[in-house]
């Protein structure tokens, strides 16, 4: 129960941060990318603030704790190789982000603002994840068959 409540509280801090930072506002996100038009550099401050806080905070956590408070171990990705999937997938994400102005972390908290456009985007994004998961299963099956 504490695990559930603490997760919800942390999610709330995340969602509040997204909302007040401007990341939940597609107009602001798109303007950050529009260097040669209506440029709004605000998002650099969001990324900077989040990154510096996490950089320092992770060091404190990994330095002081052997394991998380409510879990057996830290789940941290170990891979270091930069493969084609990572690069092409990320390029795709960037294109979609530039078209719609929403990223997943911006769109989910934006649902709480209650605008219909967010629901359209999130629905399409979830459909995209399901589609990719299905395509990935097919790819793996083909690879095994070969």
């Amino acid at each position, binding site marked *: 129960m504490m*695990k559930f409540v603490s997760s*919800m509280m*942390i*999610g709330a*801090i995340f969602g509040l*941060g*997204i909302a*007040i*930072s*401007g990341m*939940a506002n*597609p*107009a602001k996100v798109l*303007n950050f990318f*529009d*260097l040669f*038009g*209506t440029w709004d*550099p*605000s998002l650099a*401050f969001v*990324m900077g*603030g*989040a*990154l510096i*806080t*996490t*950089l320092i905070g*992770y060091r404190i956590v990994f330095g002081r704790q052997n394991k998380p408070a409510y879990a057996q171990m830290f789940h*941290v990705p170990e*891979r270091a190789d*930069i493969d084609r999937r*990572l690069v*092409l*997938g*990320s390029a*795709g994400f*960037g294109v*979609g*982000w*530039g*078209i*719609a*102005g929403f*990223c*997943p*972390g911006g769109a*989910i908290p934006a649902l*709480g*603002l209650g605008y219909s456009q967010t629901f359209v985007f*999130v629905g*399409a*994004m*979830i459909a*995209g*994840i*399901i*589609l*990719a*998961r299905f395509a990935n299963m097919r790819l793996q099956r083909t690879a095994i068959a070969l």
Partner: protein
Amino acid sequence: MFETEFTPVMSLFGGILIGLAAVLLMSIQGRIAGMTGILTGIIPPLASDWSWRAAFLIGAIIAPAIFVAAGGTVEFAVPPTTIALIVGGLIVGVGVYFGSGCTSGHGVCGMARLSPRSIAATVVFMIASFVTVFVTRHLLGM
């Protein structure tokens, strides 16, 4: 065409809150605060540890609602058309699945761990977004 106000203080403060959430999630659950990973785990077939993910998502959605209900203002405007939202949403979904993360997972948590994969992913998706907006707004005039 859609001017937005430069908000360095609120954006920095919001960013610090996002970072704080990432640090707390690692300290308490031992997890990366990446929206792609958290969301994918609650799309059927459910991940075995779906409950903390669902809790995080519920918190992330209700917090902005409470903030607005309490009198806070959150600027919101969506310049793209419905078609663009659907196309963009589909591409984002496929992209983050194959790219194993998005702005929160790679851009914040992965970069903070100095992960080479996350640094590469972040550079690639940021460049792709800049190029996409340049093409749609200045070459295609959308």
